[in-house]
């Protein structure tokens, strides 16, 4: 199966979107070759604005374009988009509910060699806390492409999180993404694994291995972290009674938090969270980092064992 980075899919989708919708404009902060907005810039140079290394201004200009009726996609690395320009996103985009799409790439530790300064594992938390912000974390190229089109027709601010490294396809060729929905990729009655982004593929691998252990794990892809499909999350938890979450993000504030908050309020079950455990990353190859920081199918499998053991002990 072919592998593609979600940022690659973003660049391709953006160029297509630009042809369909003249209101779409794209902004970047000197990273257009890496974020892949260069694909759009090549075809629509007049609708592309490279604002230089100035992320606060990037978000402000995007807000102004949106206030005048454009549909801006503002791109840079996730670290700088959500970290450097957090308050600009908060006050110039989210507070006035302007129609800006923040399309951030190089999220998480798979940025790799650049190291901890560039590996944001906080971005989902930062965006999720903003009122009215939609937060989407695509798992593969198909989902990334469709998320771009869905974001463009959605009224209001959207955060799209893309990765640097190539990821395998996890969704079917005829997959249809909708904002605010979660998707069962594998049925199972013993435990539910909620995953997003690159961890969806790991969750599927974990489920495969767990089947050999005699455990039937349900795998659910959660591309929209906010608004979370709470009803479907509760429904899955009711079915299996044990939950594992998996994300390339801090276990604080991201998918694991969102799922846990929802379940605690509506249907408390035991939960184990796989993610970055309140620490910064470091330089290394993506695969080495995923191994070292416990973001693997094996780590998910171990979390499933833990949650099932805790349930037995109850």
């Amino acid at each position, binding site marked *: 199966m072919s592998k593609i980075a979600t940022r690659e899919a973003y660049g391709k989708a953006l160029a297509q979107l630009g042809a369909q919708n003249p209101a779409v404009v794209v902004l970047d902060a000197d990273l257009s070759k890496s974020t892949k907005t260069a694909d759009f810039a090549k075809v629509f140079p007049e609708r592309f604005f490279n604002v230089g290394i*100035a992320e606060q*201004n990037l978000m402000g200009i995007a807000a102004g374009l949106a206030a005048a009726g454009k549909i801006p996609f503002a791109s840079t690395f996730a670290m700088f988009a959500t970290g450097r320009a957090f308050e600009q996103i908060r006050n110039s985009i989210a507070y006035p509910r302007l129609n800006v799409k923040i399309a951030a790439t190089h999220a998480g530790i798979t940025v790799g060699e650049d190291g901890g300064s560039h590996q944001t594992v906080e971005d989902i938390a930062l965006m999720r806390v903003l009122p009215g912000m939609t937060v989407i974390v695509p798992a593969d190229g198909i989902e990334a492409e469709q998320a771009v089109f869905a974001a463009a027709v959605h009224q209001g601010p959207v955060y799209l999180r893309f990765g640097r490294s190539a990821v395998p396809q996890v969704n079917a060729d005829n997959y249809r993404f909708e904002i605010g929905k979660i998707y069962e990729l594998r049925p199972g009655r013993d435990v539910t694994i909620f995953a997003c982004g690159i961890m969806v593929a790991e969750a599927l691998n974990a489920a495969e291995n767990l089947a050999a252990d005699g455990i039937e794990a349900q795998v659910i892809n959660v591309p929209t972290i906010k608004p979370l499909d709470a009803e479907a999350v509760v429904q899955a938890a009711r079915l299996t009674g044990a939950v594992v979450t998996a994300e390339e993000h801090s276990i604080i504030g991201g998918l694991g938090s969102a799922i846990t908050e929802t379940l605690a309020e509506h249907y408390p079950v035991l939960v184990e969270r796989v993610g970055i455990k309140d620490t910064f990353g470091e330089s290394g190859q993506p695969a080495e980092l995923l191994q070292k920081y416990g973001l693997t199918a094996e780590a998910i499998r171990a979390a499933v064992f833990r949650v099932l053991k805790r349930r037995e002990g109850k």
Partner: protein
Amino acid sequence: MTMVEADVRLIAEKAKEMRRQIIRMIGAAQSGHPGGSLSAADIVATLYFHEMRVDPAQPHWPERDRFVLCKGHAAPVLYAALAEKGFFPKEELLTLRRINSRLQGHPDMKKLPGVEMSTGSLGQGLSVSVGMALAARLDQVAWRVYALLGDGEIQEGQVWEAAMAAAHYKLDNLCAILDYNGLQIDGPCCEVMNSEPVAEKWRAFGWHVLEIDGHDITAIIGALAQARQTKGQPTIIIARTIKGKGVSFMEKQVGWHGTAPKPEQVEAALAELA
């Protein structure tokens, strides 16, 4: 009396009425920023009653000029202008900063018609203005963008990111006005963090720079006209103003940056502005 003289007289009347409203609303709220609202009154009056094309009957008229109050804490001067222009009833001014009011402590575009951008966090408005100006150019439409900045505000780094971009994109449909009243919360701007030489900085960033007396309405009219005729670069009008202008006991007093007048001070101020 020539037409310009008649206009100047009208604008001066409007500015005085706006100053009265600023005092009344901040007095009623017992909260707000009188100093920087009063210093900007002549500029904002000239924009709304001479320069800008806006229609209170259609606040979202696509062809309208846009005004961004970057120094959002001067919301009372904007509210006074919008009410005077007819965007909403003047009685509503007295709801400033109260619960359920459309007149938030800092302007909220989602609540009040006529407010083009939600502002308040300093340094963000000029970037938004750049975005609006880019949109106007993309659509090849004639409306212009006016951004009112505070002199303390230009200490924010983002202002200079936006200044660089506006000149880079040659946004001659953007006009910034600097309300240079010389004072910020903690004291004189030059003592807190000196940003002089201000005119040279903007010039070095590629802007067409005009320096005027920000209370001389004829000069404001002239500078705005010059800005309109300037091609290939954005214009900034550095307007020397007096913080608290029009109320003798507030003028040049740093303490009146964010303090509301007591009822007897409201009376005294209104008597001066009669």
